[in-house]
């Protein structure tokens, strides 16, 4: 393993399209459900326990065996009921592959637009990282993107937001470890936690005439 490589992969500055996505936060802010740092805390914990767990498990599984990419991709389709979120995940997967191709020698994947966690697992594998490291990068990514969006959308104090991320780091590790332990499981047995309100929010968001984030 290489810690520096893991940091590189999990860095929000990786040019992989993430900056244009709020991880479902923008519609929840508009609905008045997230207004301050306390409510952001609740949102991020929810994200971590649902989408974060699923992303971590699928990234770990793809890292452990890139040959399962097609199967894992279909598994994520089944776990993503919102078409808008499927599009957002695939757009980010494609962008991540573009960055990954420049950085490491990637295994060829069955799709040029895989779901983001599958792409992340493929990059982690090509970079010589382990499934649990892929899971940490995935779990961290699900909350850090939304946290960054909160700073822009709500004008929250960036120090308060990073203090929150620091408090959530042990939970991030725990979710990642939980997810990575199951990386060899059959796809149907991998975590399938969901957040219906985020799915509904994403579908509304996709119809807005004016929005700041792509998802």
């Amino acid at each position, binding site marked *: 393993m290489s810690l520096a490589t893991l940091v590189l992969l999990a860095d929000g*500055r990786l040019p992989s*399209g993430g900056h*244009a996505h709020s991880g479902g936060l923008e519609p929840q802010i508009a609905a008045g459900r997230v207004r301050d740092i306390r409510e952001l805390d609740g949102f991020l914990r929810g994200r971590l326990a649902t989408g974060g767990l699923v992303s971590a498990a699928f990234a770990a599984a793809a890292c452990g065996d890139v040959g399962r990419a097609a199967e894992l991709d279909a598994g994520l389709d089944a776990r993503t009921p919102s078409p808008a979120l499927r599009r957002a995940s695939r757009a980010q997967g494609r962008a991540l592959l573009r960055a990954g191709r*420049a950085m*490491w020698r990637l295994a060829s994947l069955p799709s040029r637009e895989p779901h983001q966690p599958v792409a992340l697992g493929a990059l982690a594998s090509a970079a*010589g990282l*382990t499934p649990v490291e892929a899971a940490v990068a995935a779990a961290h990514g699900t909350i850090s993107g939304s946290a960054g969006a909160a700073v822009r959308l709500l004008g929250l104090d960036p120090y308060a937001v990073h203090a929150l991320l620091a408090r959530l780091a042990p939970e991030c590790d725990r979710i990642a470890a939980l997810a990575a332990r199951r990386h060899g499981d059959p796809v149907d047995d991998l975590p399938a936690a969901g957040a219906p309100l985020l799915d509904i929010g994403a579908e509304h968001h996709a119809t807005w005439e004016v929005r700041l*984030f792509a998802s």
Partner: protein
Amino acid sequence: MHPELPHQHEHGPGEAPHTHPEPGVDPHEPLHTGARALRVGIGGPVGSGKTALVAALCRALGEELRLAVVTNDIYTTEDADFLLRNGVLPAERIRAVETGCCPHTAIRDDISANLDAVEDLEAALGPLDLVLVESGGDNLTATFSKGLIDRQIFVVDVAGGDKVPRKGGPGVTTADLLVINKTDLAPLVGADLSVMDRDARARRHDLPTVFLSLAEDRRATPVADWIRALVATRTAVAGA
């Protein structure tokens, strides 16, 4: 694909073997066989006339070049809609990129969504001669990544004040072409074009600057001519 390289770094115990691409190789996959389109970025502050310039270039060049446009709006598809409403380009030749509050990020720091849009256009339409990439209205520091575009145009306007060229900034100083738009408004806002011309020369040395009134020249003739020359040079080089 990238050639195999011997490893340049030590591996720790237990580290999985892996390889890196050759650092000197272009990190981007070839877009398609044959020469790809010339990509020209169009940036500049809000309201300076970027979208109007794109529309004018579509009018001027749409019939002689295989042309497509990528727009980067701050929060909507407003610019793409403007081009559609004005009927200067059919819908399938326009793609809108969403930029998550940060238009300059999408054209400079993380160009992935724009590269995807360019690739999608070339995949859908076949080989193109020219792709115009319009940035969202931003400030004087917004410039394009060379990983995204070949040449960039920076558009400022007379109504923004005749001191803009003197203030400089990366857009004014380094753009391959500086366009000073809305010259028709100069007498109304008390702007001195000779001051702007002198300051632009001082900032930009040999790089060209053109004055334009899109209200009067709806085909942006000097800019269209500049692009025609670029396309011709490129074609000549590719054919040689």
